[in-house]
């Protein structure tokens, strides 16, 4: 994949000739290679322009200034989205969330970030690029926007970092004890799946092999999440130490950071940090003088596929294949990267592991709740005064959190991103923690709002970190439509429930949006959602309908108001809007006539 990146960057596309050459070199058939290339949306088979512009089309962006910015881009460079200018200078494309939700509307141009865009900014930007100014000088490096951390002794992540402090703690401790420590800390996968980290390490350690791998999952693709971006930018060293500790614990000597392509601008910093570590003897051979403790790190770039955040898909992608999730016949800890036992952990998990060693187990357990000690990073975006990153102690009540982010008039919340759930005011008294969780299949089978309120009030809200908030002025349906748009684009296509099911749901939502639907359509949506949920191959499909289901449960009125049966007249049709072109034309003509 790195070769493909080199070609894409240099020539702006991967041509047929290149494909033939590469496939010969790697001894695979050309069609297999084409399959790989066409899977990732940042690889282009046609020229993508000297400046390739990717504009973020996720819902947060759309509610900021997306449409005007898009129009401005189209006007300035004179092409429609999805095309390349004739001179090959600009290519304009849309992409899903690029991890800058707190600084929308944002775009990537040749993977340099441009945040808080306005039509005016676009105009000057394009003209400056035409004049030949360098992209790097024009781009603005994304801000961290760390809005809140608890008091110093209760902070885990965003406090001063000293190189090597965490790593040095392993001197004199056996790997088994490190695993026991992580187990005791109840640390679990912070990407959102919450698999106990200690257990994962244990499994990997127990699988004997000549080679094992540690992979850091920095493919932060969940729309609305950007905590890993900030964490890697703020404390890249902490991540490296976390990975090294994991390597020590399970007996792995190779580590890889799988960085999503949207975060290309972080690559340099990570590489520099790795170099510093090598110089200090904190990476490489006999680390810290411990005989036989070797650990090397490299960075692998993703190429734009949400599903690669799923660990088996991520490994397939690293192996240079299509990023399709496997059947889970074997877990990565048994047969992972290149068939060897592999641990895949999220950035936040690995950083937390490093901090746990650094601060000591007792200090860590004193923070947060019983089931989920420690703190959690939340990526906040949408309708509030202070979007950005929040480090909060587990156990905070949702309504306090809403005060903290200064959300005015919160109406609904997308909790956990697009594959998470939809929260309404009846959830505001719940706390953000992993306490009293219900099994998922029970949670999503509740059909009655009252029963839901009764059963769920004491249940904690466990979060991977995305927190998108919308106030009363926002319509729910466009948000849900955006979510299904996203899953249609990002489904890997291997199993039919997810591939076609989401496509059909998308059509259905469109129908509701146009006010063509009736009650039967809502029933069908519910039925189809559960079919998709039951039979999809991986987590992407299984969770893709969560938001829709919870939204239907909590906001039935939003759906009902669009139903046909409620009224004989289609409410979505607006006569004034439908004749505005005519009015405009007549106006124009009259003024020229006069």
């Amino acid at each position, binding site marked *: 994949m790195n070769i493909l990146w080199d070609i894409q960057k240099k020539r702006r596309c991967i041509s047929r000739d290149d494909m033939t050459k590469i496939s010969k070199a790697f001894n695979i*058939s050309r069609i297999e290679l084409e399959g790989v290339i066409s899977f990732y949306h940042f690889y282009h088979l046609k020229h993508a322009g000297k400046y390739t512009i990717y504009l973020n089309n996720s819902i947060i962006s759309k509610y900021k200034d997306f449409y005007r910015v898009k129009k401005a881009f189209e006007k300035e460079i004179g092409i429609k989205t999805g095309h390349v200018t004739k001179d090959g200078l600009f290519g304009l494309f849309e992409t899903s969330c690029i991890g800058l939700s707190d600084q929308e509307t944002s775009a990537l141009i040749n993977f340099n970030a441009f945040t808080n865009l306005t039509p005016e900014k676009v105009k000057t930007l394009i003209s400056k690029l035409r004049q030949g100014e360098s992209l790097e000088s024009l781009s603005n490096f994304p801000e961290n926007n760390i809005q809140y951390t608890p008091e110093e002794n209760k902070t885990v992540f965003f406090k001063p970092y000293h190189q090597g402090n965490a790593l040095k703690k392993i001197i004199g401790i056996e790997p088994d004890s490190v695993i026991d420590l992580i187990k005791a800390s109840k640390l679990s996968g912070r990407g959102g799946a919450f698999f106990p980290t200690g257990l994962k390490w244990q499994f990997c350690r127990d699988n004997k092999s000549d080679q094992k791998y540690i992979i850091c999952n920095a493919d932060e693709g969940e729309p609305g999440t950007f905590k890993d971006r900030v964490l890697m930018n703020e404390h890249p060293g902490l991540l490296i130490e976390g990975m090294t500790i994991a390597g020590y614990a399970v007996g792995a000597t190779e580590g890889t950071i799988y960085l999503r392509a949207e975060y290309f601008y972080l690559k340099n910093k990570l590489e520099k940090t790795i170099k510093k570590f090598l110089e200090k003897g904190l990476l490489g051979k006999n680390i810290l003088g411990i005989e036989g403790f070797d650990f090397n790190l490299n960075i692998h770039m993703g190429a734009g596929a949400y599903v690669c955040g799923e660990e088996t898909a991520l490994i397939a992608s690293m192996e240079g294949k299509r990023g399709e999730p496997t059947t889970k016949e074997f877990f990565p800890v048994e047969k992972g990267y290149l068939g060897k036992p592999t641990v895949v952990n999220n950035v936040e998990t690995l950083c937390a592991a490093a901090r746990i060693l650094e601060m000591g187990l007792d200090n860590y357990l004193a923070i947060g709740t019983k089931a989920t000690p420690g703190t959690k990073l939340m990526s906040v975006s949408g309708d509030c005064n202070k979007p950005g990153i929040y480090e909060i102690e587990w156990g905070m009540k949702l309504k306090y959190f809403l005060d903290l982010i200064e959300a005015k008039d919160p109406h609904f919340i997308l909790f956990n991103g697009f594959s998470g759930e939809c929260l309404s005011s009846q959830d505001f008294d719940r706390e953000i923690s992993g306490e009293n969780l219900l099994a998922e299949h029970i949670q999503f089978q509740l059909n009655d709002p009252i029963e839901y309120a009764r059963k769920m009030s004491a249940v904690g809200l466990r979060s991977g970190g995305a927190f998108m908030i919308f106030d009363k002025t926002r319509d729910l349906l466009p948000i849900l439509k955006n979510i299904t748009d996203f899953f249609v684009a990002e489904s890997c296509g291997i199993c*039919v429930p997810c591939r076609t099911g989401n496509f059909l749901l998308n059509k259905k939502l469109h129908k509701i949006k146009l006010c063509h639907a009736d009650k039967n359509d809502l029933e069908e949506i519910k039925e189809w959602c559960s079919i998709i949920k039951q039979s999809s191959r991986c987590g992407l499909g299984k969770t893709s309908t969560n938001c829709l289901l919870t939204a239907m449960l909590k906001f039935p009125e939003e759906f009902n108001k669009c139903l046909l049966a409620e009224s004989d007249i*289609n409410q979505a049709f607006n006569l004034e809007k439908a004749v505005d*072109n005519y009015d405009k034309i007549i106006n124009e003509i009259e003024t020229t006539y006069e």
Partner: protein
Amino acid sequence: MNNLVNIKIDGNKYQVEAGKNLVDAAKENGIYIPTLCHFHNQDHALGTCRICTVIVNGKTTTSCTTKVNEGIEVEINTPELIDTRKAIIEMLFAEGNHFCPSCEKSGNCDLQNLAYDMGITVTRFPHVYSNKVVDFNSDRMIMESNRCILCMRCVEEVKTDEGKNIFSFVKRGINTRVQIDYEEEKKLTQSEAMHAMNLCPVGAILVKGMVYKEPFGDRKYDLVGKEKEAARKENFVKKGANNKFIVATTSLAGCFGCHMSLLDIDTDIVDVLEIVEFNKSPLTDIKKFSKRCDVGLIEGGCANSENIEVLKEFRKKCDILIAFGECAIMGGIPAMRNFVPLKECLEEAYINGLTSEIGANIIPNHEDIPKLLNNVYPCNEIVKIDYYIPGCPPDANHIWKVVKNILLNEEYSITHEEFKYD
């Protein structure tokens, strides 16, 4: 072989060999789990088709990827699971473009078999109308993507001696397709090519000239829709004061062709008039509704603000609204202007057109003239439409039959010839 474990399937206990996959283990005990991507003598499970979805220890998973071990409890035939499996097959039919009568594999097709087996006559999902190609470019093979169900069998199984893939998935999501590598395909022996064709559970991979070598299987046709009844409105028959039904008609953005067709029943019109009284209609030249109507017939879509007004008026005054003719149903000919900006349309009509006077520079507009809409809309985008009568124009007898059926609350009985327009 002696390593036996105890498992429970749908409440019954069985002893099976440890480590076997659930599909085979169940089969040995006479229990059938439907599969599509899974095939005999397979090294590792593909898990792509999801048809063998079962519940193992309370969690849904596919049985082809499940290895049996001691004490697992499996549910196979719960009503919900049966329905889920059926739904997946239906989804495959909605997704691809499957025309069994013209398919070489018909009668020998796993997808078709399963559909018959599950009693599928129609899919619950709307058709996807995906744009798929038939690839004849390869020297020996045809890749018929319309039929492909993306089971991945060929991708995993068919390789050259060097281990290179001949088939591969390309693109992703709803656009995922299987494609052939032409160069590599040439390296296959004839028997390997035949193996690829036979491996395909549907008729997507065909070897040119060889498809009819194997005789067709038995085709069974079933009678569809016999028990199905069209939705009827209950208690809808109300008669006017003089014991007649009241009907209103109008032509919006249409050519009046449908109205012409209305009159095309010759003397039968007398019969019609016996049970029907016309209110607002071009036929009577009554401009305004004078009473509430039972049925409103709408010809034409909506192209201007007056159309909208009239249509809404009809909805308010009529109990049942019927859109008749293609323009009312889908915009028809007037909707062709939706592909051209309104400004160009107006300029062509009033300024630049061949018939306009030289120097013309006015587009007619006045507060009394209706405003043109940006787009032409079918009626159902504006109001709720109860029934549709397609055709351009629909046949006169057909129209009156439908109206009569509705008014008299009779069962619909329209013969095929009556709505076949070619």
